[in-house]
């Protein structure tokens, strides 16, 4: 499997003409112009996300008022009242304009189910998600980069075959299944293996305060985080491995070796920094997805994050919450992509000069 990162095209219309070949003097201005163009593009994308969000979620069949009150007997009058409260009685265009105007004021509406502002719900859930996915991502990136580097440097070795094979197997495993399996074994306990980790959530009732609280959460974090890392680290490993393999064949590596540098130094000072570039993009893109949480993992472990919020909203369906989380996630991805583009531009002179 190959994961091809979304590298920015070599020639950027905004940067090309002004900079010209070897345009060293104009670099600062070019970067600024480049960044501005990128930010403009990102703003446009976010605007389109807002529009798409509204209509996308209206395509979901069913009457939200009915769907929401499934299994609850309601009189027709009460249903009408509910529709009025949801704003569903207005014409679609009116609903759309209201939606855009509210979104512009950063008001993502009120959840039908929780009867609370969506922004508040999202803010509440962001903490747990950052803890889980943030930790998971950092571990996955470190592990992936380290293993990828080793695997490429000694490609064909047993270590290479083993780590590539293992990561691919884990990558192919359904997250939900792996999570449940780990939960059954290490949280519930099977046979002689005692269940040493909790079966649910981020914290228990009567969680300790102060520094012990960190340990308490860390204890709850182990299994969800392990699941997340197992499933995602393969992509960092493979991208790192393949881009380092490309670099190993380059003349400058041979030159560095010829200078008599130690193997370790050749790798660390020369090959790896160049091989890291595609990975940077990948990492940035994934930081964007961090915000969306890991829906499967959060569902299995009842982790009270954004992924769980989204999952529950779909079951509602709680339009406002779905729209809100969807927009927040999209925006995060767009922003991070833009940052990746700009960072790439700064990091790699080849992008500027081409």
């Amino acid at each position, binding site marked *: 499997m190959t994961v091809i990162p979304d590298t920015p095209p070599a020639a950027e219309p905004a940067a090309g003409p002004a900079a010209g070949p070897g345009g060293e003097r104009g670099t600062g201005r070019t970067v600024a112009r480049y960044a501005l163009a990128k930010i403009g593009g990102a703003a446009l994308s976010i605007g389109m996300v807002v529009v798409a969000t509204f209509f996308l979620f209206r395509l979901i069949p069913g009457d939200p008022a009915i769907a929401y009150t499934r299994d609850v007997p309601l009189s027709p009058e009460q249903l009408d009242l509910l529709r009025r409260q949801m704003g569903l009685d207005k014409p679609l265009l009116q609903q759309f304009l209201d939606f855009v105007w509210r979104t512009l004021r950063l008001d993502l509406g009120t959840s039908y189910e929780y009867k609370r502002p969506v922004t508040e719900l999202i803010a509440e859930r962001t903490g747990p998600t950052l803890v889980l996915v943030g930790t998971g991502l950092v571990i996955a990136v470190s592990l992936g980069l380290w293993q990828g580097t080793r695997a490429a440097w000694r490609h064909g070795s047993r270590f290479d075959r083993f780590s590539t094979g293992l990561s691919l197997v884990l990558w192919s495993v359904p997250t939900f299944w792996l999570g449940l399996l780990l939960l059954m074994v290490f949280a519930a306990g099977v046979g002689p293996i005692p269940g040493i980790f909790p079966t649910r959530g981020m914290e228990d009732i009567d969680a300790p305060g102060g520094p012990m609280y960190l340990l308490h959460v860390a204890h709850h974090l182990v299994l969800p985080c392990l699941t997340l890392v197992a499933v995602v680290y393969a992509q960092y490993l493979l991208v790192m491995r393949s881009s380092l393999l490309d670099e190993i064949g380059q003349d400058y590596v041979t030159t560095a070796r010829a200078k008599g540098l130690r193997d*370790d130094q050749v790798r660390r000072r020369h090959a790896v920094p160049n091989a890291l570039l595609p990975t940077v993009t990948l990492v940035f893109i994934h930081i964007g997805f961090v915000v969306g949480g890991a829906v499967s993992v959060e569902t299995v472990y009842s982790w009270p994050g954004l992924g769980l919020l989204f999952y529950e909203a779909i079951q509602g369906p709680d339009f406002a919450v779905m729209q809100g989380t969807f927009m927040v996630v999209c925006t995060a991805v767009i922003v991070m992509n833009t940052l990746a583009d700009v960072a790439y531009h700064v990091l790699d002179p080849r992008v500027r000069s081409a």
Partner: protein
Amino acid sequence: MTRVGARLAALGLTLLLVALPAAQAQAGQQVPQAVQEPQQGKKIVRLGVTQAVDSMNPFLAVRLVSSSIHRWMYGYLTVPDSKTLQPSPDLAESWETSDDNLTWTFKIRDAKWSDGKPVTAQDAVWTFNTIMTVDAAKQANGPAVENFESVTAPDDRTLVIKTKKPQASMLENPIPIMPKHVWEGVGDIGAFENDRYPVVSSGPYVVVEHKKDAYVKLKANPTYWRGAPKIDELHVLFYQNPEAANAGLKKGDIDLIGRLNAPQFEALAGDPNIVQWNTPGRRSAYLQLNHGAQTIDNKPVGDGHPALKDPKVRQAIHYAIDKQALVEQVQNGLAVPADGSIVPPMYQEFFWKAEGDDLVTHDAAKANQILDDAGYKKGADGIRTMPDGERKLEMRFSIHTDTPVEDKLAQFLTGWFKDIGIALSTKKLDSNKFTEETGFTGLFDIAISGWSVNPDPEEVLATHLCSRRPTASGEGGGTESFYCDPEYEKLYQQQLSELDRAKRVDLIKQMQRRLYTDAPVIALYYPNNLEGYRKDRIAAITPIPEDKGILYGGSGYWPVYSLQAAALPAGPADGGSGTGLIVGAVVIVVALGAGGFLLARRRRSVADERE
């Protein structure tokens, strides 16, 4: 590790250190004091629930888990009796009705709120009037006050409710009485989360902490008028994943779990510490037949098969179904075949049982006979056609996607229907589309359906009224069958105002008989209520009804009020997780150490090889 790796690790640590206190701050804002209390010797029972609390505000909450918790914390006018399920005194000590049956006078009990203030009739007046006058407060229980003309309190112990029409279901009023002195100053009721802990209430338990999508912590109410519960704390823990909840029960993270499906229930077998609690259920599963769906202004909607308009065809279908086989094969024997209609036999008083000529049993020959006599001739392919010869009896069976039970059901039905010359094809729909097609657009022939019934079946009976059909503009009105039958309507109106309980029970049974014989819906089976609890933690619990009833999902507070816990060994929940914490930490440290060692070794060996 490479320098980049080291930097990433540092970044990770920073992120963790920044994010954790933020998460803790959120926890902290809801939990001011809870953590410092001593834990030793407390009697705690922990319930696992697989539904998240939607709101702790009783005016807004509609989910079962929320209304259950409200049942445990608030007082009501009446509560279902633990043996008969008939209304019995709760905050209302006694009551009487006027001769015209329009005025109810309740005597309010001398009870106290958990903050020490007395419960008065003024509290009830405020509660009912708020729902009657404030739109935002109607969400949970609006229909319950629709027929109220006025609610007043001549004195602190007397509550007078005047109704527009006689209301037989008055004593099943589902509205918790709220403390006026607390709620008066709330402001916008639609935006209040009822999160001033401890929440002032008058029932057996008081909510002291609630963390959304995580847990609710309740404490025994020492001022409760029946006497404080025998346990100190009741914890309600939320699991998004039912399998994880099951694992939690086996491990001992929770002590009781309700609403299990058959496979989850069977997974609990063989554990010496777990009691599998299998009792008659509140639910009936039935088929909905599109017998000519219409909107409320009698305009046809949808595309139901015309043959289903014929009661004879519906009856033949009823004869074709082997309910006993469905119970055994589809429900693993954990259900009761339906010899009745939409009210399950758990409600002995209201349950109507088909007998004599009414009773429909599995009889394919009889079904074929009925269809032959009615002129539906079998073609060469074994499929019947309409008497006018125009259309074959090819029908769709709508079920939900991702529900293995319904898939299995569809297979059995398809076989039986083939025996009587009806070709059945399965149509799978996601739940929203399903609700739309079977609830208001009428784009179905036969669909699976089901409903949970309350101690008073009025609500479920109302889902088959003419007025519940979709509006003229095509919006759903809450019908479960598109049924509109003059006889059924008449019986419904009569039972509404029949205050003589025996007579009303009879009317309600007649309605079920009408549904059974006319067959707009065909009840298949009544799934059992499946629960499990740890007997090493729960010393005693009284189900509702008392002999063989429900533990978690039942009506009223009897099961949780009667809970008795085995006292935990010193340092409960915490002790267990503390040990786990240490073991977990050791595991992590060992893993990291081993990783580091391997890493160092590998680096050296790689360097050795190359240089």
